[in-house]
């Protein structure tokens, strides 16, 4: 027997319920991908380890943390956490673009589902994915001797700021994924974005850079999150620099991501709606 579909929700509460339920179905699809692609999970686990080894030991051997205090690993780790959150933009872009390319977005759009669920599902899946990645990375950091020194409360606050940064980059990713027409062009966009995620205070104190470059690195939204989380973790390097942007890092670690969301979320929604134009 052919089943009957449910009636469309009439009240805002019922509509919200559909959005969440359908959003979870869409997110669940991404989570099921993990089960089918254990290789990707392993790669996801190895990636942070490689980064810690590469930056912490290969480059780190020649690095002195600013202010002279502590180990370079202690300085580096907050930077690596933040950079990994920013790198999440790549996964989001590719996922959004692939669905649009393969007609899956169109299929979703032709179903009697809550239309906002596509985006809600993308957000849920990517945030869960990033949380898992962050937990693995923190575990690796602990193994190589990194510690948080300001209590678990502050450490969780720092994790919150990192996830907020991820959330902001997620919306940039959705927007770019919808704008860019082909996977090849996406590769080119990633080539442009990669330096942006590197040009921060994550690896080197911007004061050691040429002035103009140092200024860009200081004002990079990622840098504010790095400085703020260094502070919350009680890691060295948080006090580096006497500039306004460095002194207000805690506030800017919230303002920057919110600003990015305020700009890119309406752009992404407009772009999604314009698929029907």
């Amino acid at each position, binding site marked *: 027997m052919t089943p009957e579909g449910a009636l469309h929700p009439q009240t805002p509460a019922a509509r919200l319920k559909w959005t969440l339920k359908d959003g979870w179905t869409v997110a669940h699809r991404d989570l099921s991908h993990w089960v089918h692609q254990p290789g990707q999970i392993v790669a996801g686990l190895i990636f942070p380890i490689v980064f810690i080894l590469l930056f912490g030991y290969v480059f780190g051997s020649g690095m002195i943390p600013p202010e002279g205090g502590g180990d370079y690993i202690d300085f580096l780790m907050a930077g690596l956490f933040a950079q990994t959150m920013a790198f999440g933009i790549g996964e989001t872009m590719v996922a959004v673009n692939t669905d649009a390319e393969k007609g899956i977005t169109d299929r979703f759009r032709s*179903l009697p589902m809550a239309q906002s669920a596509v985006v809600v599902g993308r957000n849920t899946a990517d945030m869960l994915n990033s949380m898992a990645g962050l937990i693995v990375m923190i575990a690796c950091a602990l193994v190589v001797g990194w510690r948080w020194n300001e209590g678990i409360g502050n450490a969780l606050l720092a994790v919150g700021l990192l996830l907020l940064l991820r959330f902001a980059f997620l919306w940039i990713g959705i927007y770019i994924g919808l704008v860019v027409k082909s996977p090849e062009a996406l590769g080119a966009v990633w080539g442009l974005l990669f330096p942006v995620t590197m040009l921060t205070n994550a690896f080197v104190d911007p004061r050691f850079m040429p002035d103009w470059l140092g200024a860009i690195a200081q004002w990079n939204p990622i840098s504010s999150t790095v400085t703020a989380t260094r502070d919350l973790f009680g890691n060295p390097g948080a006090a580096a620099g006497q500039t306004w942007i460095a002194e207000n890092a805690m506030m800017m670690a919230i303002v920057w991501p919110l600003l990015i969301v305020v700009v890119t979320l309406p752009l992404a929604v407009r772009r999604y709606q314009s698929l029907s134009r």
Partner: protein
Amino acid sequence: MGGDFAVVAEGLRKSFGTTLALDGFDLAVPSGSVCGLLGPNGAGKTTAVRILSTLLRFDGGRAEVGGIDVQRDPAQVRSRIGLTGQNPAVDEILTGRQNLVMFGKLNHLDAKSARRRADELLEQFGLTDAANKQAKSYSGGMKRRLDLAASFILAPQVMFLDEPTTGQDPRNRNEVWNVVRELVAEGTTVLLTTHYLEEADQLADQISVIDHGRVIADGTPEQLKSKIGGSRVDIVLNSVDELPIVAGLVERVCGNEAEVDPDRRRVSAPVKDRVATLTEVLRALEDAGILAEDVAVRKPTLDEVFLELTGHRAEEEVAA
């Protein structure tokens, strides 16, 4: 507008920037029938399907699917339709069953019903053995069947198939045709776009030929074919000198004006009775002592349909 039509379009207009994609597109598909939308690339077939399946908004005119106004209430239309685009839109990392369960849930079946419906569809579309394999391991034909099954979860009132067999080998094409016939047997109305005359001929009760965003001819396949003269006989000769003699001879046998193509050394003419005419042509050639290089009776190509209906060849449109 009676309730007897599952799909109705009246004077639909749609432009993308300065490009006019639909220019007064009219269509009326009776419930339970198959309508073939036939035309070259760029004629507006896909635009029409995307509008009727709520994916695109339009600039002017009116459209109704399952008795619901498409522009005013797209959400209601979506619960009455199924859509398969030019490429199978399934998640290739998931298994066939996972795909169908997911799309079932997105059609708001509860988890149990979604699983039961998935199993039914896997059975119906001959995918039970591959149910737990990832869709990326499926053949082109299997992917297409999974795609069709995913559009068929609620047994929609209207099914839109946008070039369902483009790029498929003949075996897969036959599989898709069989599925479409099954859908119709269950009472679904099908709107199918294609640029294969044969496909429209095989499946459609009614064909609308579309060019430059409007329907330029419609009718049953038989009506359209008789309009353009049905089959043709082609005779390729060894020598250009014999062309006029053979042209005269063919015109006498077929009772139609023959077309002469000196470059290909070919005489071509429409025929009514395929077998009888072929026999007569061969006998006439033998009587005249002319040895032909090749003689064949064939169906008109889409190109000829277009040449006949529009005065230009279908190929010229491909650039768009």
